[in-house]
């Protein structure tokens, strides 16, 4: 079965098509929702609801277009909405120790892969992400996790390109500040 087969099955009321989509995309969707919400049960609720919503509105989906970007966009939007509803924003407060980060980046690890796999580095990145607003986290997720261009993000978010650019730059700037190193080129 491929994606088109799965969508066709759903359009004919066959739940096996949805199962294929769930198996194929649930983990990626969960991780995206988790990056924005920082709450695993909430992320699971969001992704479950998103798939059920797919089943309900699949007739509106243009199957000439790829499913994943369309679906992931809905997951990002739902995650943003839920986080705003729950008022779980974490205020922008303390900075991560710059020296600590510099040691991690400059001395202890070499390749990007090694840096990324360092648990301490991951914790610092995670903490820094937590200090962004959900909206800023969403654009970071779209840029780095979904690897969307600014033009695509503009289209997906329904916002002018300038707004998206500003959001992305402000998120990068805040992350850079949080990570405490002027020499880091984000």
């Amino acid at each position: 079965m491929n994606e088109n087969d799965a969508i066709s099955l759903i359009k004919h009321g066959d739940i096996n098509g949805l199962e294929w989509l769930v198996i194929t995309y649930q983990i990626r969707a969960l991780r995206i929702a988790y990056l924005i919400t920082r709450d695993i049960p909430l992320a699971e609720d969001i992704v479950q609801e998103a798939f059920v919503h797919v089943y309900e509105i699949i007739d509106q989906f243009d199957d000439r277009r790829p499913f994943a970007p369309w679906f992931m966009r809905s997951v990002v939007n739902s995650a943003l909405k839920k986080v705003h509803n729950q008022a779980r924003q974490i205020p922008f407060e303390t900075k991560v120790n710059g020296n600590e980060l510099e040691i991690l980046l400059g001395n202890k690890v070499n390749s990007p892969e090694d840096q990324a796999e360092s648990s301490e580095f991951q914790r610092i990145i995670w903490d820094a992400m937590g200090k962004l607003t959900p909206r800023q986290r969403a654009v970071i997720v779209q840029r780095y996790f979904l690897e969307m261009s600014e033009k695509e993000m503009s289209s997906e978010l329904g916002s002018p390109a300038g707004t998206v650019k500003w959001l992305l730059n402000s998120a990068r700037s805040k992350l850079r500040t949080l990570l405490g190193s002027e020499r880091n080129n984000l």
Partner: protein
Amino acid sequence: MMTDETLRQALWQTVVNDIPEDRDLWPGIKANVRLKRNPIGHPKLKLSLTFVIVLISLIVVATVAYAWYRIMIDPGLQNAENKGLVVDYNQTSEPTVFAAVPTQLAQASGPSKTQNGITVTLNWAYADENRLALQMAVEGFKLPEGAQIGDYICKLYVSNNQGVSIGSIDPADVQVLKDKPGQPIILTYVSTQHIDASRHDHLDLSMDLTIGPCGPRWNYGEVYIPDQKTQTPTPPPLIGNYHFNVTVPVYKGLTLTSNQTLISDGVTVRLETITFSPSFTSLHICFDASGDQKFNFAEWYPQVSIQAGDKQAMNLNTYMGVTVGDTESCDDMGIPVPIDPKLEPIRVIVQKINAGPSEPWIFTLEVKP
């Protein structure tokens, strides 16, 4: 130097650690889709008194008949049913401890063994060394316009004093019998875990099913777990909490100890045990990568199938638990299908999937009873 690629990889790795590949949302999604397919109707007929009396009589008679209605959702449970191992309870819940009320949510004509005309019945239950399954019927419940069943029928909370961890369970299957009086909602719950039948030949279960509206994600019973008490206030007003105390026998399975190992690409795979129970087949398998091969469980996601005799191989699609050590990761996984261990040989085939479905890496192990 912090690059885009470093940040991207760090983000990825963080969520990979927290959300491993074995998360499976499908059972919950399937149940919710079935609810969408079978919405509860909202009859608006104004009935005459005579007709209501006749209708109530029919409902009472029909209740006796359909309380025995049985839905077995997989081949394993059907096998347990065929063997006569599933225990019928037909047990109505104890009166709700609180019923703050909205009487408009109850159908006036439903059987009225409990408050608000809503009856919750435990139809049947079954347990073996691999899992616990049970079925509830909720009758006489009128869903408010625009609400989903999951908004009102909360997770089933199951506890016991025997050290068997079960907790809260989402329904694995939900069916609304629109053609039956009271439009009963049939909910099948399945909890998959090991239960040592040599220690527990039965389970004494305390079960709570809350008819909500449900809280963010907790059942009434769960707010009394000490470490969750502060963050999960009970959302009033509820229709009520329906409580059951029930004893369920645990059927012993056949466990074969294998401890066979195969090594490939520096990774040792050890099949420790296979447990054959009437409703389920499970295995405990460990992966040791202390050699040259770098081991990352999140990306090293195993797909396992089992083949008995000349029968077709079946993929194990239920994960029961993962134990990750410094150099070894062990999985408990299974399939809700009974397998006859007399069908020699039993083959367990492990495929390596490294961050994608490319280059499958296959082991074949034979286990002879």
